[in-house]
């Protein structure tokens, strides 16, 4: 019975995938050039992100608060980091689209820069998507309010799926900046401000 259901599920998935592929192609952003980057990025407060993942800050909070207070605060901190990771996922997606567009015409040194941006962009996207799953799982099973297990530590989010999130995002900023300067037609300050 299970094999029967699984079998038809895979066949159905094949048909759905074909429809999704058509949908993705149809609704994609048309031709993301350098002029369609900075305006579409969502600014990230990097210092706040660092602060949320800082183990020392978390240790102080644990020490100075009652367990109930800390668990309630930790849930808010998880939501805060979730919002940051969502922005990371969005920004990396915009930058990958731009890099993909540039890859079609770039040659030589510019192609190397584009490849670097694609490579780091995928890393950040992978991190953010795995981190989103992990954070949502924590929120789903309300690990913060369980007394049996300790409240989750946001320090665990530093590295997910073998990718160090904030370091990778920093490299993404650098790679995007290099390409921006290389092409030299966009507003560089606006890019740095929005990343």
């Amino acid at each position, binding site marked *: 019975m299970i094999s029967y259901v*699984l079998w038809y599920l895979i066949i159905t998935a094949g048909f759905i995938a074909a429809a999704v592929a058509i949908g*993705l192609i149809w609704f994609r952003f048309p031709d993301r050039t350098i002029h369609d980057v900075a305006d579409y990025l969502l600014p990230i407060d990097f210092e706040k992100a660092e602060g949320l993942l800082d183990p020392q800050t978390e240790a102080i909070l644990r020490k100075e608060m009652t367990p109930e207070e800390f668990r309630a605060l930790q849930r808010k901190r998880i939501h805060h980091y979730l919002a940051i990771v969502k922005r990371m996922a969005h920004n990396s997606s915009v930058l990958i689209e731009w890099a993909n567009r540039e*890859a079609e015409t770039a040659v030589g040194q510019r192609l190397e820069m584009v490849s670097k941006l694609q490579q780091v962009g995928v890393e950040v996207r992978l991190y953010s998507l795995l981190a989103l799953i992990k954070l949502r799982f924590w929120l789903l099973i309300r690990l913060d309010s369980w007394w049996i297990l300790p409240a989750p530590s946001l320090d665990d989010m530093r590295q997910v799926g073998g990718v160090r999130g904030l370091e990778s995002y920093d490299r993404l900023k650098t790679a995007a900046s290099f390409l921006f300067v290389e092409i030299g037609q966009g507003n560089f300050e606006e890019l740095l401000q929005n990343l």
Partner: protein
Amino acid sequence: MEAILQVLWWAPLPMLVVLLGLMFWRHSIRFFPWFFIYVFYTALATILRFVLRNHEIYPYLYWYSDAGSAVLGIIVMYEVFRSVSYKLIRRLWVNAIFPVTVISTLILTFLRTRAVDTDLNTTMTWMIAGQMCARIIEVAMFLLLLVFVAVLGLRWREHQFGISAGFGIYAAFALLASTKYYEIGSRFNLWWSVISVVSYTGAVLIWLWYFSTPIKAEAPSSEQPPLSLQDLERYKDIARRAPRP
């Protein structure tokens, strides 16, 4: 009806020959050698089938060549998977995805074929089961590459996606047809043929569209650490001072 079926049945042959020509012309062979072998093998097998279409060995030729085509299809899927995973995610755990998919598919096919009573003989049973197994892998790889496009930003215009989309769409239809053929038996023969050949023609058209554009060479990936923001500042200064046309 018979004439239309005959046209449909042999229509992929000229298209496969054109695809081979395109792959030669666009130098795509060095990027996808196994896909080229697959197309070459399928074109050759179709020519043989056409020549021997009225001969008594035709059913054997058809099913055995189809088995070879299914095996080559799995190898092509691995080629596509390797190429995409190397480009996108160079993590050790990613290498496990393909073998896990193949093993899971083998188990699922075994369980599924054991659970169904069929009027087909043992050899045919194994042939159809093997073909279904290959189709499941092709659908799974299409799903995986679609995830790579939607989530990780793989370009939908990449040839890897085109190859797996062709295989995946054909495999979904062929799988449905093969499953029904396995369950209903030889009474489903006509519909099985129509669904298989129309979907395969669609797949070849997808490949033709993708391979009509040349494959862009990737930039050599350096393992050096990324440049720092201080380097960027220096670079920015140089870029500002440099005259632009």
